[in-house]
């Protein structure tokens, strides 16, 4: 009886995994669509989310000092709630874009033999570290508010900017490879 329950459970688990795998949307790895998606993620990070000016404004201590000095308790609470919400949105967007880039590099590593294994390994570690840092930051901000971890924010932004630069170099190579394919020239870089 116990064996029957055991095998039925394994069968159920296998069926559930097959069901979820079948429902998953296929992602065009290594295609021009994936390249565009990765470029958009890179642009969103470099131009939208990581510029020092924006990060400085979201986590500006002078804004909190102004509100603390000039406004009653209700406004102070509103300020902390609002900044916390913006900070959490910012971290979640950074994490989403890093996820998108990581997914692209994972697919690209499978499709292109000419990619530099060292830089891809470096990127893989950077992305894993950044996603972990984003998770930690989300937790810290959620519990301690927007001003709880200024150093972690600074180091996360620096690490993300470095990862973006490495990714940009890889994307430049892939872009040239894609253009070669589009022009009908053999690139000689596609892996079997």
């Amino acid at each position, binding site marked *: 009886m116990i064996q029957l329950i055991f095998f039925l459970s394994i069968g159920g688990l296998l069926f559930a995994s097959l069901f979820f795998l079948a429902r998953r949307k296929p992602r065009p790895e290594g295609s021009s669509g994936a390249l565009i998606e990765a470029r958009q993620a890179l642009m969103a990070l470099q131009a*939208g*989310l990581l510029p020092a000016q924006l990060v400085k*404004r979201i986590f500006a201590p002078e*804004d909190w000092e*102004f509100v603390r000095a000039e*406004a009653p308790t209700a406004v102070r609470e509103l*300020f902390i709630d*609002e900044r916390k919400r*913006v900070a959490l949105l910012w971290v979640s967007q950074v994490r989403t874009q890093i996820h998108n880039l990581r997914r692209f590099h994972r697919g690209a590593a499978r499709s292109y033999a000419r990619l530099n294994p060292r830089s891809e390994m470096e990127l893989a570690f950077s992305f894993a570290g950044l996603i972990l840092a984003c998770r930690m930051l989300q937790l810290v901000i959620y519990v301690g508010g927007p001003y709880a971890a200024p150093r972690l924010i600074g180091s996360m932004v620096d690490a993300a900017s470095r990862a973006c630069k490495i990714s940009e170099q890889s994307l430049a190579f892939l872009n040239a490879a894609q253009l070669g394919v589009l022009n009908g020239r053999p690139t000689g870089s596609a892996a079997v």
Partner: protein
Amino acid sequence: MYTATTTRRMDVDQAVDDLRHRTLSEIPRSLDRLIYLASMRDYNTGLYYHDGLASRFTQEVACQALADCHRDAFNQLVSCSLRELVAQMEEYISATHTSPRNFVTAWKKLEPYRVAVPVETDPVVAHFLFSSFKIALAVLEARLHSAQAEPVA
């Protein structure tokens, strides 16, 4: 192709200079500029219209120049501190000759700043500015309350 693009960019740069010297120099605050430039945009098409600028250049060039200036004004406002934003709002209220109380009530209800954002603005940046407006309005409202309470006390 390259020459046409370069010429068009030069025209847009000239139109931007023209707009800055003739019109925007009269509007010193970035909040006022943002609202003015957003009002030049047709909400149905997202295109900007300015008859004077279009007559000196072309409609397409005028539209691009207005969009560029709108983006600049938005970025300037985003980089303002909360103290500066509150100050700009106070000056804007006095320039419009509206009762501060009515202004705060209307802006809190209608949130007109939501339609003043340029196209293709990053959602996080837009959300940050909306949030700053909300806090600035709360600060202004608190100031109005304390100003009203002072004579009684």
